[in-house]
């Protein structure tokens, strides 16, 4: 039981070092780390519904897209600062998430059917965005560069590094909070067996819906970063299935339903994607990094179905029960009473 704590402490130490790094790095490394953090953030947001609750959403790009377009259009056409537009985008995404979740969960779609529902909604968003000329249609929407922080734009690329880091820490904090509360415990139980949860008094519909809303809100906030980091939005990329795959694959590889899984996954995959992209580009082979993704996904499914993080914990000799579920009583002093009671009880 101590090893996960050691890992946690190590992770915290790394996170403390991270803010200091940009001053030592070249700009390429800063870019790579920014992407690690950003995709770690998106993965963590997905993790709430996809990992903890076990509802495999393959349409999370829809939330990035809605959030990105909302913040960008509000900033460009209505003069609303993206710092507030970010929340608007989050709320719009959460509303979309609520609709998808309501329909999917009310009608009891599970597994593959839920996957298809989320994909269908994301594709619908893509098609709608491609056909609304006011937001650029299929050609995309472009943001004028001002370099003004009020416009969520920065001359120094290190600013994006810190913002992405902040996003990732925020999402991880939210998940850590959820994990310790009744809500989080219900989520993992729902992943294990929904009917049994119902029998035990869990309103599975409400819990799943709430998870979907929180997850899509955070993802929608991430859309603002996406828009103002790239300065252009194309419906086929920002709503596309490939982005959804990018979001899903990191927590899966790192360990879905664990607190650090999405981050571990992003630290593995984002640099790998960048490096292999650069490597294969040299050889004139585009798409090479996605072949690597595919192979990695196959290997993880076959050999490490719980993901890398639980495997790392086990490797160190620690015990790992499913997804992020060290019972709080094992560490909290208050439950010493419970243990004492256990000893004095009849046996």
């Amino acid at each position, binding site marked *: 039981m101590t090893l996960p704590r050691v890992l946690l402490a190590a992770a915290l130490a790394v996170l403390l070092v991270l803010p200091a790094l940009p001053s030592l790095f070249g700009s390429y490394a800063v870019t790579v780390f920014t992407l690690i953090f950003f995709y770690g953030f998106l993965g963590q947001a997905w993790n709430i519904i996809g990992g903890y609750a*076990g509802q*495999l959403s393959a349409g999370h790009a829809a939330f990035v897209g809605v959030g990105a377009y909302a913040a960008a259009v509000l900033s460009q056409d209505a003069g609303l600062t993206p710092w507030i537009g970010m929340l608007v985008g989050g709320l719009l995404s959460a509303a979309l998430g609520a609709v998808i979740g309501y*329909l999917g969960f009310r*009608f009891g*779609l599970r*597994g*593959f*059917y839920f*996957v*298809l*529902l989320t*994909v*269908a*909604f994301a*594709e*619908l968003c893509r*098609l*709608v965005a*491609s*056909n609304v000329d006011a937001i650029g249609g*299929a050609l995309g929407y472009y943001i004028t560069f001002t370099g003004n922080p009020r416009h969520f734009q920065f001359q120094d690329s290190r600013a994006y590094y810190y913002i992405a880091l902040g996003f990732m820490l925020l999402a991880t904090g939210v998940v850590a909070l959820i994990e310790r509360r009744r809500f989080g415990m219900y989520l993992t139980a729902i992943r294990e067996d929904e009917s049994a949860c119902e029998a035990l008094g869990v309103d599975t519909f409400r819990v799943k819906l709430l998870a979907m809303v929180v997850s899509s809100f955070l993802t929608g906030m991430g859309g603002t970063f996406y828009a103002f980091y790239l300065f252009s939005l194309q419906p086929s990329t920002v709503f596309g*299935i*490939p982005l959804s*795959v990018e979001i899903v694959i990191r927590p*899966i590889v790192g360990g879905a339903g664990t607190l650090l899984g999405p981050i571990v996954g992003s630290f593995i995959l984002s640099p790998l994607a960048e490096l292999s992209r650069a490597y*294969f580009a040299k050889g004139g*082979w*585009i*798409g*090479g990094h*996605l*072949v690597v*993704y*595919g*192979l*990695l*996904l*196959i290997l*993880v*499914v*076959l050999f490490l*179905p719980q993901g890398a993080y639980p495997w790392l914990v086990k490797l160190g000799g620690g015990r790992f029960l499913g997804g992020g579920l060290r019972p709080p009583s094992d560490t909290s002093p208050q439950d010493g009473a419970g243990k004492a009671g256990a000893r004095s009880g009849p046996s």
Partner: protein
Amino acid sequence: MAVGLTLIFGVMRVVNFAHGDMMVWGMYLAWVLSTRFGLDPYFGFVICAGVLFLVGVAVQRGLVDRILDAPHEMQILLMLGVALVLENSALMVFGPEPRRVRGVLRLSTIDVGPFIVDLARLVTFVVAVVLSVLLWAFLFKSDLGRTIRAAADNGYGALVIGTNVRRVYAVAFGIGAACVGAAGALVAPFLPFSPSAGLPASVTSFNIVIIGGMGSLPGAFFGGLLVSVAESLGAVFLRPSLKEVVSFSLLIVILLFRPAGLFGKRLS
């Protein structure tokens, strides 16, 4: 091609996300055969089907077999991995430029009453119907076909009566892949294609299969017709770029109200 997908799903309850990418490989194979060896796709499709059959068997034997008992989610992710590998290896080998296969029937048309029909499309349609009928006959008339259906009904039961379920699964997966391989080769003469065509093709065929009914052969056939008609109507009454909106909306409605599809048995 939805026929192939429905076969794989119907028999094995495995969701083949790599379906569209297998079709794209069928197209490229037809392209290679026709440009390098001068083999017309209307003959080449037999070879494409054969090669894809082997690919299907290999994927089933090497990968899917290992996790048949795992949760559905794992299979989805596995096939997603296979899809990524297939699509992007095609991208690496053939590049992103759209290709087109020159068939002998290119540009020839015939008049059927008031309509002008593209001969290439007509031949493809006829061959597709013939293949579907053959497949149906195979499943319902031959011993192996009956075994496949038995395994689909009850894998454990089939195991008990001594069927080699794994072999049956491999054959079914192979035939499913062969169907898309053939389909790919057959549409290649009139549909320009690039590696990125795989994913949309997969999504479209999922549409068709869900709408028609998972695991139902006539469902796949009529689902295909329905989706095409709906998309054409959407293109006429809305705007061409919105035609898919119709089929995705249809998909959502079917998912919610009749998840077993229009022709499928009710899932218990």
